[in-house]
């Protein structure tokens, strides 16, 4: 599978390495060259420097032939817009999008975007961890 990942932060870089490990072709886009340092030196995929809400950048990253697209920059709105470009303009089969704000995540989920909110997931896990401690003590 050919995967384009927008945003090479901790999550983007980790996702890229994981994808590559199981044999997928990965392209990572980031607006800053520095971010690519987060990738393991073993990373063999493509690194593209550019703005992810620019169609030209996405095209350079090969989005026209991509099977999947993940938007994981630190900006909710950037992720939302890039995902919608991937879906509506380039018709990528699988588009996933990280949205920190739970309300925005809920709305865009209703609009048909596969949106994941680490805020809710993280809070739930922490909640469970705390409750777990209470139970055992």
């Amino acid at each position, binding site marked *: 599978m050919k995967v384009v990942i927008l945003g090479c932060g901790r999550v983007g870089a980790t996702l890229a390495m994981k994808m590559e490990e199981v044999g997928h072709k990965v392209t990572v886009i980031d607006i800053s060259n520095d971010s690519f340092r987060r990738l393991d030196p073993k990373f063999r995929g493509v690194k593209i420097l550019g703005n992810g*809400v*620019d*169609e030209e950048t996405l095209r350079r990253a090969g989005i026209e032939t991509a099977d999947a697209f993940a938007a994981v920059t630190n*900006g*909710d*709105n*950037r992720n*939302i*817009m*890039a995902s*919608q*470009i991937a879906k*509506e*303009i380039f018709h990528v089969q699988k588009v996933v999008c990280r949205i920190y*704000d739970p*309300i*925005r995540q809920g*709305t865009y989920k*209703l*609009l048909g975007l596969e949106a994941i909110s680490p805020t809710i997931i993280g809070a739930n896990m922490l909640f469970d961890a705390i409750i777990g401690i209470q139970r055992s003590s």
Partner: protein
Amino acid sequence: MYIIVGGGGDVGYYLTRNLLKQGHEVLLLEKDTSRYNTLSEELGQAIYNGDACEARTMEEVGTRRADVVIAVTGHDEDNLVICQMAKRYFNVGRTIARLNNPKHELLFQKLGIDVTVSPTKAILSLIESELPGPHFVLLMTLKRAGLEIVEMNIPPTSPVVGKQLSDINLPRRCHLSLILRGDEPIFPEKDTRLLVNDDVYALVTKEGEEELRNTFGTS
């Protein structure tokens, strides 16, 4: 009308002032506190310190009862989300977005934003139309009518030079509205003749634009 404006840059500030002057209930949202402080001295109750991208903020300022939401920040992704949230989450009837990158126009239309305004494109057109010599400039798009207002300067090589308007085949649904010869405005009649260097203002459909260019020999 209750109008919410997102983004207190120059555009947002002057827009808010104008809308207030027209008697509307307006609220400008600015997330930067120091910018908010500067503007609030003049705008008073008409400005709010908050991020228009945040659903919680929009809830607080009563977006549900807003008639129009206008997003004029310097970031297209923010303008897109402000308008989409307003439309889909708060059921606002009309959303207007500023486009910083003209290339995003098609996407915004596809994603259900009612109106997009592209200052970059407008400025380019206006400057182009001020340049001397042959040109074909799209001055304005009347979206609901599906029409464009274009300005053409007639080059010496144009096939229409010296011809009467009644002898020129215009595209379907096209209207020549004005000829500017030097500083003299001429309202075109059937027997008006076109001369080199005339500026012609026409209304034309998007589909008819190409044919109009060819007819007038302008590029």
